[in-house]
């Protein structure tokens, strides 16, 4: 793993990775099968599906049925990957994922695209700020929020082969570039991006690049921040969280999600039991999404570099 953050957007989109990696997995492992709910074109898999209708199945706009069929395919020996937009991958088919897949031990991977503010112009109906909360509540589930294309490329095949219900939330466009292509990651292990003694910023997904940007601004102000990419929100890398809290004495989380039930909740649950320290968050308050360009929405919902800096300064002051 090598960090090559330069403050610029990742030139490779997540869609680029999904449209190459999913067909590659389907072509190399006959047990992998892919289902979508009429959004194949959105992640660049429609062409492959047309040529391989038995490997990539379009279920139509029926997410509950798709989740149930995936569970049945898992029972028949397949490793199904399902995709739809985040709100439909979580709220719309939650009971089916919870029972037909989770409770029944039928292992499936669900990809929810365009999480949180990355839903942009699709607006509030398409903007899940609660998908992580829902999937975290499924016993034994794995919940991943990827930072950039290199991380997605490395994690996706590992996720598909893993046991249990797996939820991957991923933007279709680019986040900030963070990692060198070919970087290796381990599910369940947070990545230490930089080390500082004054505060730990624990970020995931869309917010990782912004957290690094905030750490650079803070350094100029004399605050040295540790930055952790906690791309696996469940199971949480608790030891890393505790060690960082002990070393730096305060923790700030940064996520493209509600403050209820996501990364802030997960880290809080861990620290309250093991190492209570002053905490802060850059996350969405208890409210619904709305329409607009992503930059506007990031500002509106407190996901900017400036906001992370403010929260860190306030949290450090509480030490």
């Amino acid at each position: 793993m090598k960090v090559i953050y330069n403050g610029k957007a990742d030139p490779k989109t997540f869609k680029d990775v999904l449209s190459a990696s999913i067909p590659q997995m389907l072509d190399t492992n006959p047990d992998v099968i892919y289902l979508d709910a009429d959004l194949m074109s959105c992640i660049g898999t429609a062409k492959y599906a047309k040529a391989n209708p038995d490997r990539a199945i379009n279920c139509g706009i029926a997410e509950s049925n798709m989740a149930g069929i995936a569970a049945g395919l898992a029972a028949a020996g397949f490793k199904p990957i399902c995709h739809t937009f985040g709100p439909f991958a979580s709220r719309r088919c939650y009971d089916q994922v919870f029972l037909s897949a989770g409770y029944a031990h039928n292992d499936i991977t669900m990809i929810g695209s365009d999480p949180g503010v990355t839903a942009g112009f699709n607006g509030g109906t398409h903007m899940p700020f609660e998908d992580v909360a829902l999937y975290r509540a499924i016993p034994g589930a794995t919940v991943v929020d990827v930072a950039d294309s290199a991380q997605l490329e490395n994690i996706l095949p590992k996720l598909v082969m893993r046991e249990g219900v797996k939820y991957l939330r991923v933007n279709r466009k680019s986040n900030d570039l963070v990692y060198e292509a070919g970087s290796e990651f381990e599910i369940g292990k947070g990545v230490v991006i930089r080390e500082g003694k004054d505060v730990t910023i624990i970020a995931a997904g869309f917010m990782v690049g912004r957290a690094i940007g905030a750490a650079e601004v803070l350094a100029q102000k004399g605050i040295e921040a540790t930055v952790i990419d906690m791309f696996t929100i469940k199971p949480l890398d608790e030891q890393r969280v505790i060690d960082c809290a002990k070393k730096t004495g305060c923790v700030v989380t940064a996520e493209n999600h509600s403050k209820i039930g996501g990364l802030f909740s997960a880290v809080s649950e861990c620290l309250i039991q093991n190492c209570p320290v002053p905490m802060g968050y850059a996350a969405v308050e208890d409210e619904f999404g709305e329409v607009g360009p992503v930059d506007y929405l990031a500002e509106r919902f407190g996901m900017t570099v400036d906001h992370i800096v403010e929260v860190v300064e306030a949290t450090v002051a509480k030490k």
Partner: protein
Amino acid sequence: MDANCKHELKVFAAEIRLALLKELKTRGFGHVGGSLSICDLLAVLYGKVMKVDPKNPKWADRDKLVVSKGHAGPAVYATLALKGFFPMADLDTLNIPHTNLPSHCDKNKTVGVDCTTGSLGQGTSQAVGMALGDKLKGRPSRTFLIVGDGEIDEGQCWEAAMFTAAKKVNNLVWIIDDNKKQLDGTTAEILPHGDLRAKMEAFGFDAVRIDGNDVEQLYDALTKEATDKPIAIVMDNIKGRGVKAVEETAANHSMNVKPEVWDSYIAAVEADLEALKKAGAQA
């Protein structure tokens, strides 16, 4: 179907009813109405139709059963025990802590159960996935899906039905138990379904309506070879079928009655079974 075979299946159905009632009596309560209404179907499926091996219950090429109306689990357990999937004595453990026989079907707990169900509607899509998976893996298996008529209020059933026909998942047989009642009353009062056979036909199935108590009609419908069109069987039925006193009880979805009442149900089925055996195949 010859007379011997028909007789054999009728006896098996009565034996399932008897084992089911004794099983429910151990707790004193349970989903008796919807369990009784599928006993003839289970007798035909496990007596003559399904390729299963009690000694090798996970055999990949077996036929599978999805009881999407998962509360009919007790009837399935009675059938599986009679077939030798597990000892008859296990039926006494229904719903006790750590049992392998929970009120609703659970494939991870009960030997011979193929699908975890209970949240109505969810068995339909799982059955589609199981059948599709078998087909894609080149297995000769068929999957039989039992859906309650009340259950079909759930929209997921219709999503799954549309997919089954559209994608020609013809190794899956839909069986709707049209027993006319759901928890709160009759389906006619709560949410009338209209002509279920016509609805399934409109969805693209080769759909028939038969008497859910007639083993010969059940056998013929279940063994019909499917064309590209998957088969749907609507079973004209009565909730509590086979035990007159239960059939005549208005609220018979789940019943909690005294041991002597269970004994009276058991005695009635024992008498039916005795009469069947006495009359033999000629009856």
